[in-house]
């Protein structure tokens, strides 16, 4: 009898183990095998980036394979998710300590929030110890990853957002690049009168696309000091009437985008621009690669026009580099640095330029031959930009940015007023000190 009781317990345990082991073999303990320092063993480097889509995906697959080939015994464990999902995932991974050895990051406040976890490696010495390598990068791009005089990232892609326009349409109608907001609106009216029902469009279902507009418009409108105070967590009030005015201008501008704008995504509207259906689209230089797919599209671009009452720098450029960070907890720091340097090496940057069609921070990687038209000019524009502004969602706390982006979307859909939206932004900003420590 007694024996039976024990057997019973054992059997039940066994039953549970069946469940557990059923999947154990496939569950190759992902967190445990990051460090195979021992000689002869493979060393695994975990790499997490945000470009699962083509053509970038193929490029990173190539990088992974090439690096593994050149470094026998090294295995790159690569993962990727797109955009908003990446934003959420990487934050969680960094905070939970399951941090990948090498990972991509946006700049500025986004990077800063990752750095604040204390788990991101300070790369200053990596730059200092190898001045020859440091020289290969466009110097003004490092500042977006510099906090308290320490550099925490290696910028890789370089970007800026401007209005691209269809040259054929502009020439046919005798239109010129607008310099001021009023000229811009007049231009849109003219296009409309000439039969372009939606002279400009944007995929406003993607809330980040709304953010890109509002970020630039805020920068143009406000003086840098006011902006800095309001964007910083805990001190933001957003009471300056300029913010409300920006939303009113946004209301005006989005009215030209037609009723469908809030139900499509950025990719769809970019395709409309490429197909020549819409004359103007706000695009990143990083998207130049898509434009080359259609050779008969003639395009040019102009910077965001300035408001007559604007206090911000009219020559400022919105756009920020993206780059790579290294975990402070990595067991293979030297290898991680080597890998990052491998990605941003002139040869691979040139390959990226050629395959993907967007710019890197590596000097000389872009040539007339390997780049879509307009690239070299764009690089010059970024290098000489009087001021660069990060994307709105990288520049402020996520909850304030969310209020801005959803609000902007609601304004475009005609279901919210600028007054209400700015109030929601103010409320979100006011809650910050209470919500975050």
């Amino acid at each position: 009898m007694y024996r039976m009781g024990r057997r019973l317990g054992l059997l039940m345990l066994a039953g549970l183990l069946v469940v557990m082991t059923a999947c154990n073999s496939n569950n190759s303990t992902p967190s445990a095998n990051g460090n195979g320092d021992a000689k002869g063993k493979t060393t695994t480097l975990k790499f997490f980036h945000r470009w699962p889509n083509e053509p970038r995906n193929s490029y990173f697959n190539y990088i992974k394979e090439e690096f593994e080939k050149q470094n026998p015994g090294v295995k790159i464990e690569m993962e990727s998710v797109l955009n908003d999902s990446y934003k959420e995932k990487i934050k969680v991974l960094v905070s939970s300590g399951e941090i990948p050895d090498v990972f991509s990051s946006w700049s500025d406040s986004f990077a800063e929030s990752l750095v604040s976890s204390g788990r991101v490696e300070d790369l200053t010495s990596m730059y200092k110890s190898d001045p020859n390598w440091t020289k290969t990068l466009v110097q003004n791009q490092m500042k977006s990853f510099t906090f308290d005089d320490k550099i925490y990232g290696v910028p890789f892609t370089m970007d800026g957002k401007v209005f691209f326009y269809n040259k054929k349409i502009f020439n046919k109608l005798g239109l010129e690049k607008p310099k001021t907001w009023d000229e811009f609106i007049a231009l849109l009216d003219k296009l409309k009168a000439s039969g372009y029902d939606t002279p400009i469009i944007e995929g406003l279902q993607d809330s980040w696309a709304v953010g890109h507009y509002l970020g630039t418009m805020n920068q143009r409108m406000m003086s840098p000091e006011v902006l800095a105070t309001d964007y910083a967590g805990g001190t933001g009030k957003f009471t300056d009437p300029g913010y409300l005015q920006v939303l009113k201008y946004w209301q005006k501008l989005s009215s030209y985008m037609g009723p469908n704008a809030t139900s499509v995504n950025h990719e769809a509207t970019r395709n409309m621009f490429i197909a020549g259906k819409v004359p103007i689209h706000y695009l990143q230089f990083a998207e130049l690669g898509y434009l080359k797919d259609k050779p008969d599209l003639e395009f040019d671009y102009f910077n965001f026009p300035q408001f007559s009452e604007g206090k911000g720098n009219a020559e400022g450029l919105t756009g920020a580099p993206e780059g790579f960070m290294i975990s402070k907890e990595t067991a293979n720091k030297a290898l991680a640095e080597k890998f990052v340097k491998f990605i941003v090496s002139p040869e691979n940057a040139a390959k990226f330029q050629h395959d993907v069609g967007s710019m890197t921070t590596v000097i000389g990687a872009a040539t007339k031959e390997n780049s879509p038209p307009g690239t070299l000019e764009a690089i010059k524009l970024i290098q000489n930009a009087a001021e660069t502004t990060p994307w709105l969602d990288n520049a402020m706390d996520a909850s304030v940015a969310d209020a801005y982006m959803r609000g902007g979307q609601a304004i475009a859909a005609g279901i919210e007023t600028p007054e209400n939206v700015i109030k929601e932004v103010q409320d979100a900003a006011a809650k910050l000190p209470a919500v975050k420590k």
Partner: protein
Amino acid sequence: MRTRRTIAPYLFVLPCVLMLAVFVYMPLIQNFFYSFQNVSLLSGKSSFAGFDNYRTLFSDPVVGKALINNVKYAVISLIFQVGFGLVLAAILEEEFLRKVSTVFRTIFFIPVIISITVICLLFSFVYDPTEGLLNMFLHSVGLDAWAKPWLGSGDTAIYAVIAVSQWQSIGYCMMLFIVAIQKIPRDLYEAAKIDGAGRVKIFFSITLPQVKEMIFVNSLLTITGAFMVFNEPFILTKGGGPGTSSITIAVLMYQNGFVKDSMGYAATISLLIFVITAVLALIQTLSFRTGKGD
């Protein structure tokens, strides 16, 4: 002898109780603690917040908006899934359809077993403003004025989202009603027919009262489901857009927790969901136990 008698049953029950305790009950209780804290995943820090999260909950206009959307969800689902689902079931159980009813049944039930992710991705093709099936269909039959940016307009977004759920779930309710109707004694119908009752009269005087229990169960299930809707707005309108016009309470919880990193507030919202769904579930469980069951 006695030791075995006392230990054996506990050993049988133990794994189950353990699983429930760790993965179901403990989180529920922890929710309660989190709701009094500011929890940030990113910094890993948490601090005592008192009733702050509750104050936010009651003053947050989006909570109200989300709840209204959930109520719309519930009402429309009641009409379509429970109402039409019952009618559909009654029709399919009609004598003259007996031979083909299995085919119909299967057709209406197929959407139920397709993953909601698949369905939502499919319907983003249906709703596309320029190249979507729905608008193209409207254009091709000359109803151009009806074509709309379904998911992008504040007026239609929530209804477009709700419609997808109806499309998917009506077959589920229908199936439950069919099961219930098949249990109704046939002689009741025979007797009514002999009395010369019409079809509509038979439906109201026999079918309806006989499936009362199932109507009740279906209604509760549908309402509970309506207060937990997450996938449809999360995928179709990218988290309840435009603005917050198609947001639901579960999406709001997700956004606060995993986008804005306010885990404490997210836990508070989930307590609200708990209260709503637990009340509904309690009603169901109690009535199950007192009722004759089916």
